[in-house]
């Protein structure tokens, strides 16, 4: 029992040491000097992130970046899209041919057919005539849809 309290105390001591060395000490030491230099930045920061002073908790992760513990040097190239080092060409918002949509529909229908055929094929003998008739009904239904799509010229690319 005593040993557990010892560990808890040790953990607290370590936590306090960690907080002091990594957060409180650098912040308290550098804040007065930096406040003068970054007065405008701080004001902007406060205006942007502290419209209500009690609302500061969600912005705490941004504070190391503000204190320049984490470097923050954005520029237009850095902020642009990464495309293997190439400059991006054109726009991402382009129109695709709407016929892809019909192809996708037919593909999904046949895909589902395959999903049902696999378990039937695995236990072919066990399912017997009943399974065969069920699968034939399924294929028949999909075949009607396929013929319909064919007749509606979905398979033609014009």
């Amino acid at each position: 029992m005593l040993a557990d309290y010892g560990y808890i105390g040790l953990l607290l001591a370590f936590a306090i040491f960690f907080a002091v060395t990594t957060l409180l000490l650098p912040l308290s030491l550098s804040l007065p000097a930096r406040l003068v230099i970054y007065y405008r930045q701080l004001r902007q920061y406060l205006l942007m992130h502290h419209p209500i002073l009690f609302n500061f908790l969600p912005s705490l992760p941004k504070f190391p970046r503000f204190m320049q513990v984490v470097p923050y040097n954005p520029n237009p190239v850095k902020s642009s899209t990464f495309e293997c080092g190439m400059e991006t060409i054109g726009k991402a918002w382009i129109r695709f041919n709407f016929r892809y949509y019909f192809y996708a529909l037919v593909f999904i229908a046949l895909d589902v057919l395959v999903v049902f055929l696999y378990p039937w094929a695995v236990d072919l003998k066990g399912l017997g005539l009943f399974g065969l008739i069920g699968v034939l009904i399924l294929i028949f239904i999909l075949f009607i849809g396929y013929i319909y799509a064919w007749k509606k010229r979905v398979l033609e690319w014009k």
Partner: protein
Amino acid sequence: MEVEEVYSSSELDKKEGKAINELIARSQETIPDPDEWLDEEIKRNILLTSVDAILDWARRSSMWPVFCFPACCAFEFITTAASRFDISRFGMEIVRASPRQADLMITAGTLTWKMAPQVKRIYDQMAEPKWVIAMGACAISGGIFRSSYSVVPGYNRIIPVDVYVPGCPPRPEALLHGIRMLHKKIAKESLFGEGK
């Protein structure tokens, strides 16, 4: 940024050639190595040294290289990354394909001017702090291709280089030594002082 519309491959070629020629004109001088602060007297806030030590230790213990292997030194890097030489001992076995997640560029191989804008762009897009190891003779000076019109005579024409690893190609041990040298350099960096 303004996006130029490109409608044909010849327009693309012209655009690319223009960009490359501009880059060549801009990079006639070598970029000085970011190491002037290394030899100077250490002017750092003594009270912040523990923070610096922790941050530098964290940074050098988990470096993330980015894919930038234009030529044959890449094989020596692959060997270095593989099981025998094993750079995961230094906490950097994962090579990222995106510069957003990387902070170290190991420039392994000959660089042509055609490829130079891309390398520069990848370097520009890396998150900071970032470092560069120039690996091999071609990366240092253009190597045996130095006199060619199409070869960049050293990566320090386009990006600042921290550590040079000589050799053609350098053995994996040499690259590991270069990585250790970079670790030593990072260990000297200070949060609010020099070498940032």
